[in-house]
């Protein structure tokens, strides 16, 4: 009975010594919960990093009363069961990392150049038109506007008459009546009176 009581005491002492001696080592606390946990395994040149985080949020609290796990030396991979959630998640993450690595190392995709037609669709034309309508041209044009000449009726009459007289086309030729034709000279033979010498009586 005493031996039974001493053995756990030694075990506790050994555990305490081991924990004090391992304080210089890397201490990884283990938490066991029912929630699904995503485990990310990252392989770096210096070693392997295992990161776990709960899938549906929340922080996995370490149950009270459990002693901290002591892992000495590398690799710090957490041992899990063959078909536990941790194992399945770890495998999925590893496969995904491998797939990503393979995709990165794969040759670059072939670049295909496609020639786009220069035609403009109706919608694009409408857009261009609307843009063109919205453009406002600001041009300054200097136009010398002659003042309107204000003439009184008298001046207007003078100007008009002068212009008309100057522009008037040759006046209408005056119609001159033809000279009256002289009647034909009619020569009449007028019988001259015959001269009769007076009869003078000789013997008076």
């Amino acid at each position, binding site marked *: 009975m005493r031996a039974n009581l001493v053995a756990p005491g030694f075990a506790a002492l050994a555990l305490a010594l081991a924990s004090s001696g391992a304080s210089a080592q890397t201490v990884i606390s283990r938490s066991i919960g029912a929630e699904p946990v995503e485990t990310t395994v990252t392989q770096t040149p210096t070693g392997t990093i295992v990161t776990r985080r709960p899938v549906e949020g929340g922080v996995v609290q370490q149950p009270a009363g459990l002693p901290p796990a002591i892992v000495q030396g590398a690799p710090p991979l957490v041992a899990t069961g063959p078909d536990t959630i941790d194992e399945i998640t770890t495998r999925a993450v590893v496969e995904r990392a491998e797939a990503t690595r393979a995709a990165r190392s794969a040759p670059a995709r072939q670049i295909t150049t496609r020639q786009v037609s220069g035609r403009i669709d109706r919608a694009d034309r409408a857009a261009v038109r609307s843009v063109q309508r919205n453009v406002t041209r600001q041009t300054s044009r200097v136009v*010398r*506007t*002659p*003042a*309107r*000449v*204000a*003439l009184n009726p008298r*001046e*207007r*009459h*003078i*100007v*008009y008459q*002068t*212009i*008309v007289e*100057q*522009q*008037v*086309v*040759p006046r*209408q030729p005056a119609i001159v009546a033809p000279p009256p034709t002289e009647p034909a000279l009619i020569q009449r033979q007028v019988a001259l009176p015959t001269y009769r010498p007076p009869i003078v009586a000789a013997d008076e």
Partner: protein
Amino acid sequence: MIVRPAAPLYAVGSVLPPNVPLYALPQNLALSVPAAQTYSYAYLGGRAYLVDPASGIVVADVTE
């Protein structure tokens, strides 16, 4: 032959075509109507227009 004035072809302020002949006003008219001495005139379709010779703009329609 006097041409009877027709309906106005050009309103005041409009520009005459360059092929419309312009004439200088007589000197005696410049004396009697000083306001018109700087303008020329055009006689189109029986209508008399005072025109700015530099721009061809009709400044007055003096047709009676």
